[in-house]
């Protein structure tokens, strides 16, 4: 008995956490077995097992892969562009007070606005293909990266910069030896936030005027009352987000063993 209690107290964290999720799934699965749903409601209802079946079916028919491929391309291109522009711009804004003052109004304004409002405009300019989605992913993901890089550069120890300077380092060397290593953690945090925004951009971008991609698949399924297909999409997006977020979190905690956990932010 005591061994059992010990076993429980040692792993209470995982048992309670995993147990709760398991319980929810079982409860969800057993709802139609316990109560007879009215016809109108059963139209919107699905169970985890049905979602799984549908997922398997779509997988066999090669449908999920095709949509996933389009979504993944949009995600990677947009995020790549965001890194390409966000990091250098953040570094420049952090190092030059004139640039900082000149770009700040735009960064503040665009960061406060939900970037998806630009979607109709981007569709008008870039058409219904993947490029309007790539752009929406890009403008979603670029600001967390830019702002975090900026904060990282701003928080660099002045003394270190001055020491390297007085030993004759130029701006490039200061950047390489002091600024970049010190803002690495901030950049990684920015990357995590950017990944979340990028996935959001893919989802929403495809809801609205797209024929290919997981978001388009979900929007079409929802209007045809294929609720299980919608949940397949939700589950895929969830899984991808979790994998990315947890991976970057791992890197983060490697970089900050000494730091207590701050507020969760996604």
């Amino acid at each position: 008995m005591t061994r059992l209690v010990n076993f429980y107290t040692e792993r209470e964290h995982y048992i309670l956490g995993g147990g709760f999720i398991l319980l929810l799934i079982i409860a969800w699965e057993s709802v139609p077995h316990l109560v007879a749903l009215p016809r109108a409601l059963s139209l919107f209802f699905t169970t985890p097992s049905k979602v799984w079946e549908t997922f398997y079916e779509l997988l066999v028919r090669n449908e999920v892969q095709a949509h996933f491929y389009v979504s993944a391309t949009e995600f990677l291109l947009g995020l790549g562009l965001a890194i390409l522009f966000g990091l250098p711009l953040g570094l420049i804004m952090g190092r030059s007070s004139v640039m900082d003052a000149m770009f700040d109004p735009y960064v503040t304004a665009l960061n406060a606005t939900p970037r998806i409002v630009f979607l109709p405009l981007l569709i008008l300019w870039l058409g219904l293909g993947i490029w309007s989605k790539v752009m929406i992913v890009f403008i979603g993901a670029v600001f967390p990266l830019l702002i975090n890089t900026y904060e990282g550069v701003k928080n660099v120890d002045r003394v270190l910069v001055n020491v390297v300077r007085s030993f004759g380092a130029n701006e490039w060397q200061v950047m390489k030896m002091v600024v970049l290593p010190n803002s690495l953690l901030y950049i990684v945090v920015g990357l995590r936030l950017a990944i979340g925004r990028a996935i959001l951009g893919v989802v929403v971008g495809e809801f609205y005027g797209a024929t290919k991609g997981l978001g388009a698949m979900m929007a079409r399924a929802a209007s045809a009352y294929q609720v299980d297909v919608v949940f397949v999409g939700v589950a895929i997006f969830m899984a991808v987000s979790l994998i990315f977020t947890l991976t970057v979190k791992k890197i983060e905690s490697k970089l900050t063993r000494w730091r207590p956990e701050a507020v969760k932010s996604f």
Partner: protein
Amino acid sequence: MGAKRIYQEYQRPILGLVSVAGLFLAWELVLTYLVPLNPFFFTKPSLIATAFQEQVLGGRLWHDLIISSRAFLWGFSCAIAVGIPVGVLMGWRRRAEYTLDPFLTALYASPLVALAPLIIVVFGVGLLAKSVLVFLLAVFPFIFNAFAGVRSTDRLLINVVKSFGGKEKDLYFKVILPSTLPYIVAGTRIAIGRGLVGIIVGEFVAASEGIGFAISRFGDTYQLPEMFAAIFFLMITAIVLTEGMRKLEAALAPWRVGQEAR
């Protein structure tokens, strides 16, 4: 001499103003004199200003904004009412944290907007569906910030209240709540951003009125000046809300400013 001193003192706002004014001026001039304007593809500031005046003073955009903010307020109030108690519970009771944390973290990390089409199908086009969407997106920052706030409460203060005979109620209202407040304000700022996303997405997917609907309708009908006017209108609203929260944060907890990623 005087001008130089003024410049040095107000360098930031001056440079910011110059760059914004310069951009708009260049935009206007290029499209007036250099490149012929294709009204189906682009527009210029003077036309946007006219449209803005018409739409905002004519009251159309205000009407849309009120429609949108009604759904926003319902969803947001529910998010506060549910999020803060859940967060406080998680911070105060270890078992509650163990039980809820993995589940809620998974939900927080995943793009819940993906549920938008389903929510609209289930709850219908209109106020309810949008409120549910806003609630779903905005509740997590409240939960996790209240949680972190309770966790950061000084144990010493709790012990002092306890040893002077304070009750559970005193602990909550005299120690935990005040020290959690700055965290909750920070959470509010994040939640505003997410809630706005919810409103806009809800109205993009299916709506008959509201600011997101206005933007997408103007886009569909190639009314570019009106569309830009609506976007700028929403932008101003968003900036006022977010920067207001940031000011409040700075007033409540000046030592925390700039510690957290935006």
